[in-house]
């Protein structure tokens, strides 16, 4: 932070402008961008000339923060009688002498305001006037929203800030009522999709290998890989069996479920875990959980069983044929796009496939579905024995990983963690309640297992760099110190009003310069 003061003498039109000139020299030394310099000069010169023309004397104060230029021009003079009038373009009280020199066009204050990001003027008649202007030194530091598997329709946002609070990795920001995702922090876990009432967040629809308007299937016999939950999304009148039949009619002769690979993964991890010394072993079932560990719990990476996630293993299994994949969440979509090296794979979002099915299902639902003889014997769902801890929901997952990191989960041999309730049954991409959906599936009598293979991970799981403050560790340490210091000066309410999820996040956003003009609205209002 640099503070400077440039005195201005009133009435001396001849050598006016010297304060602005000296300011310019100073700004040149720190390398202010050309367009920003123009705006600062317009504001400074107009303010300086106002003092010269109207007042006796004054000072141009400048405070240069890391991300913004703050100017305050305070004069001793007659003051402005009517501020509203003074802000009106064309209104001027300048002398005939000043007008002769080209001043007094009534554009001074309006021009300062136009050049500024923040502008304020107050005046006391008979005493003087104070003009404040802030200009952000950088205009663009926001990362592009929805970097990977998520799309963000920011214009739908109603500003409730629910997503801000819910995001487990604090990857969301709502600056100027526009939600955006810091892609380096996002693990694509669907939490924001689930909490948003306005439908801002969705699985991204277009990608390099997605041709949404092309007919799905029909031509060559195709393999379709879907989450089972997809079949349960059409209400109690249209059971999974009918959905499956309609999908076959669409041309998908071979329909597979991601759960087939998931089950095999669970089984394999069990025998893998028996040989491990380091407990608990984390089963790579849910790609979002893997992302969470890679970015927030790097010390646990060694405990992830070295296998591909089920959706990746499914891609491997289908690598030699035309296959259509339906991801249950953005993180699966991202993995599919990464895994598709041959370009044979087609990725269709659940909503799009449902859109194709619904007209056909309507005609189907008229034919009475034969009432299946229901097996009312309780099935032993998820009976994994005492050494396997299965947990759902991102809050639970975070809590368990924290415990594990502290060595408090040694009683379990295997952790099977999924970000969504009941695994992919609970992805907010699907509307049906996860418990209802899972029950509907298990009642369908369709459950049969075909042999599939678990695939070893091609490359080891690695820590993500998203949380690093700087590529240079020395600089990162400096930044961390600044973040801590700044965070301590904030109220600590974590209210989210600034658009960042917590006071600590705001401090980080300011130090890392993620957006111009960030400040704490609580402090600005002067509340304790």
């Amino acid at each position, binding site marked *: 932070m640099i503070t400077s003061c440039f005195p201005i003498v009133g009435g001396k039109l001849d050598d*006016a*402008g010297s304060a602005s000139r000296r300011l310019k020299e100073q700004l040149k030394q720190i390398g202010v961008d050309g367009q920003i310099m123009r705006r600062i000069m317009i504001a400074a010169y107009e303010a300086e000339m106002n003092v010269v023309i109207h007042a006796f004397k004054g000072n141009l104060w400048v405070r240069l923060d890391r991300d913004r230029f703050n100017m305050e021009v305070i004069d001793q003079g007659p003051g402005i009688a009517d501020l509203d009038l003074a802000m009106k373009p064309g209104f001027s009280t300048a002398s005939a002498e000043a007008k002769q020199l080209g*001043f007094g066009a009534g554009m001074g204050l309006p021009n300062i305001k136009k050049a500024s990001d923040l502008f304020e003027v107050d005046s006391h008649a008979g005493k003087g006037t104070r003009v404040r202007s802030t200009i952000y030194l950088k205009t663009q530091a926001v990362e592009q929203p929805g970097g990977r598997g998520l799309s963000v329709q920011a214009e739908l946002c109603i500003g409730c800030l629910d997503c801000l609070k819910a995001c487990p990795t604090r990857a969301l920001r709502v600056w100027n009522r526009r939600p955006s995702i810091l892609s380096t922090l996002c693990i694509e876990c669907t939490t924001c999709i689930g909490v948003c009432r306005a439908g801002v967040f969705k699985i991204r629809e277009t990608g390099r290998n997605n041709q949404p308007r092309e007919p799905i299937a029909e031509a060559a016999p195709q393999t379709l890989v879907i989450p089972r939950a997809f079949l349960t999304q059409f209400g109690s009148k249209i059971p999974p069996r009918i959905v499956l039949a309609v999908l076959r009619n669409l041309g998908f002769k071979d329909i597979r479920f991601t759960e087939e690979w998931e089950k095999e993964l669970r089984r394999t991890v069990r025998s893998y875990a028996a040989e491990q010394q380091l407990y608990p072993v984390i089963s790579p079932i849910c790609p979002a959980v893997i992302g969470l560990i890679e970015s927030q719990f790097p010390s646990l990476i060694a405990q992830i069983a070295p296998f591909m996630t089920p959706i990746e293993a499914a891609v491997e299994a289908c690598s030699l044929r035309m296959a259509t994949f339906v991801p249950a969440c953005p993180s699966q979509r991202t993995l599919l796009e990464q895994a598709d090296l041959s370009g044979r794979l087609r990725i269709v979002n659940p909503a799009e496939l449902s859109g194709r099915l619904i007209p056909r299902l309507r005609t189907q639902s008229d034919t009475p579905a034969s009432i299946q003889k229901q097996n009312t014997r309780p099935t032993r769902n998820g009976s994994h024995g005492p050494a396997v801890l299965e947990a759902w929901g991102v809050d639970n997952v975070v809590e368990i990983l924290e415990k594990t990191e502290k060595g408090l989960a040694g009683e379990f041999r295997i952790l099977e963690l999924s970000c969504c309730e009941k695994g992919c049954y609970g992805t907010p991409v699907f509307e049906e309640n996860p418990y209802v959906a899972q029950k509907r599936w298990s009642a369908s009598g369709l459950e049969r297992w075909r042999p599939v293979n678990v695939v070893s991970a091609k490359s080891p799981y690695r820590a993500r760099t998203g949380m690093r403050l700087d590529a240079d560790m020395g600089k990162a340490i400096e930044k961390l110190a600044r973040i801590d210091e700044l965070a301590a000066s904030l109220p600590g309410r974590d209210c989210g009003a600034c658009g960042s999820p917590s006071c600590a996040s705001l401090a980080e956003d300011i130090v890392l310069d993620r957006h111009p003009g960030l400040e704490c609205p609580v402090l600005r209002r002067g509340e304790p």
Partner: protein
Amino acid sequence: MKLEQLIEAIDARVLQPGSKGRTEIAHVFAGDKMSALLERAGPETMLVTSLANTQLACVAELMDCPALCLVDGAEPDPTLLEAAARGDTAVVVCALDMFETCGRLYRRLYGDDSRRS
């Protein structure tokens, strides 16, 4: 376009040469209000005005504007030329009136009848 070509088009007299590297002109802005000149002045802009006071040089310097053209054969304040020399701004004066000056500059910059696109 080079400043020299524009000077030639309006038969202007050079009172203060600017630095050689900065005489490429892409735009011309004409006006007599200091605020408007300030807003429109820029690194490749020549300002045309019937004003002739020192503050013109100050505005040009602050906004990195390479050249000032005074019309109506105005006799500038001596301090204007001093200030222009300090700010490395070219000052030329032309005997024509504002309308004629602008007309000729326009034709030289954008061609005979072509509309500015």
